[in-house]
């Protein structure tokens, strides 16, 4: 069930959510079987920032009913480290690479987009806009005006598909999606994690090193379905949908709500090969002729 997405030919509609699968680490753990049975039709990188980041202090995880809260803090090698060390290795995966980038100002995002886009290994870019713009103090993805200003700055810098990863924290997510589309985004992806918190049961203090974190897993699946449905009504561009997908049926629901691709995140933590299983289940569902 190959699919076309922004000009890319993908073997099936299941990809990974940014930051939920490290293909290089997984190859260390599982060897070449990972390449032979790569679980995703395209590989989305963890967020790359201009400078290296160590990430948030631990503890970084807390299990909740039907999911978890993470406070990872975007650790990564920085742009130079990613381009020199990781990208050549990822090019061996045999699937299109989508690189997720985040900057703390429009100029920083522009720098990242230009540098990543130049590399022929890269098929598409995803913009992580769930961070504050240090110049305006506003979250880049929280407001239609902010997102439009960002895209006006970076859209002309690349001919490759630009996907905007929407934040579920925006007051009006479809309005942000519409602003992204009008400013030239090729696709939108949603939902990112939903802000949450846990207290240490022994001390009553925040458990996570970063105080709050992002909730993921099946707990947020209904939120994802509602937001994907609303965004699909608002924009004509392709949607990459994610949020608590555990089975083919969950992916099928998101596609019925308007998604072109579905990303798997937290379920890969429970089952490293979840992407393969979900793609197979989805194929079964979509090939079944319904009366």
């Amino acid at each position, binding site marked *: 069930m190959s699919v076309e997405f922004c000009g890319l030919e993908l073997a099936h509609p299941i990809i990974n959510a940014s930051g939920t699968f490290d293909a290089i680490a997984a190859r260390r753990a599982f060897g070449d079987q990972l390449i032979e049975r790569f679980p995703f039709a395209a590989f989305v990188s963890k967020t790359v920032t201009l400078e290296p980041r160590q990430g948030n202090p631990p503890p*970084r995880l807390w299990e909740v009913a039907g999911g978890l809260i993470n406070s990872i803090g975007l650790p990564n090698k920085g742009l130079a480290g990613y381009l020199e060390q990781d990208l050549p290795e990822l090019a061996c995966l045999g699937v299109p690479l989508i690189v997720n980038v985040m900057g703390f100002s429009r100029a920083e995002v522009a720098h990242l987009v230009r540098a990543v886009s130049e590399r022929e290994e890269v098929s598409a870019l995803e913009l992580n806009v769930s961070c504050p713009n240090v110049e305006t103090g506003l979250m880049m993805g929280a407001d239609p005006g902010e997102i439009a200003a960002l895209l006006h700055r970076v859209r002309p810098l690349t001919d490759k598909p630009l996907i905007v990863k929407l934040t579920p924290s925006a007051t009006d997510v479809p309005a942000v999606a519409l602003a992204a589309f009008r400013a030239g985004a090729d696709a939108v992806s949603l939902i990112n994690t939903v802000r949450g918190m846990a207290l240490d049961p022994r001390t009553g203090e925040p458990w996570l090193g970063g105080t709050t974190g992002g909730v993921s897993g099946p707990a947020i699946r209904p939120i994802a379905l509602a937001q994907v449905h609303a965004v699909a009504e608002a924009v004509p561009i392709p949607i990459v949908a994610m949020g608590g997908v555990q089975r083919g049926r969950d992916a099928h629901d998101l596609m019925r709500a308007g998604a072109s691709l579905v990303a798997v995140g937290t379920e890969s933590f429970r089952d490293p090969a979840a992407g393969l299983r979900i793609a197979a289940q989805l194929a079964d569902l979509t090939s079944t002729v319904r009366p």
Partner: protein
Amino acid sequence: MTIGSRPAPFGRRAATVTARETYGAYVVLRCHDPGGPQPRAGQFYMLAAAERWGGGEAERPFLPRAFSVLRALERDLHFLLEDVGPGTSRLTELAPGEDLLLVGPLGNGFTGPREGRTPLLVGGGVGVAPLAIWQDQLGRAARALLGFRDRVHADGAALLHDPTIATDDGSVGYHGLVTDLLGEELDVRADQIEVYACGPPAMLEAVRAMCAERAVPGQLALESGMACGFGACFGCVVPTVHGYIRLCLEGPVLDAQVLPTAAIVGAGH
């Protein structure tokens, strides 16, 4: 870094529980794993029950749990469990014939002692698990010092050969901390020992400090909350002199020297 003789099979697989034994406060689950490679001592697996473990109607447990392998004999894997929360509660109620889902073996494992040193195994509580398989491989001459809370936990000492036991309440063996016993050993032959330790954060930190003070090499099997076990989630980082490292990939066994502290925040839950 080398990981075992063969990497873990990709994806999770079912392994049928073949036996469930109790050792006081602990449960040993044995499962048949014909598809997996032989693990190294100190490696771990991510375990979940095949039924009633998230995904369906159950809310928690949701994520698999990481367990060092206790023993690997023929194609059977043994795991040492203590019921301390929703995950271990569900796992300890599994009966022969029911299925586990597992991913592994993962992580690095222990390496043999340096030239001129003999191994000394130091374990606390459920942390004795990786020391049992390590003693199986090193041979019975490898001595073990094991600490437990009380008599019902000290039953876990039967999993190793001829250990010296300490209990917090003095109900079995030496009345006090296992690290007191370690101190006595180090007083006599610090230059001949390599320490292999696993246990609660406070015990490991005491072991680390004693090793550092007396320049004794130590390999510590640590715990940190993990969602995935294979480097995907970045959740299990611990601080080292080289910055944060993912314990699932670079550990769970770390050289004591790379740790500013072995009192890992969030471990021991």
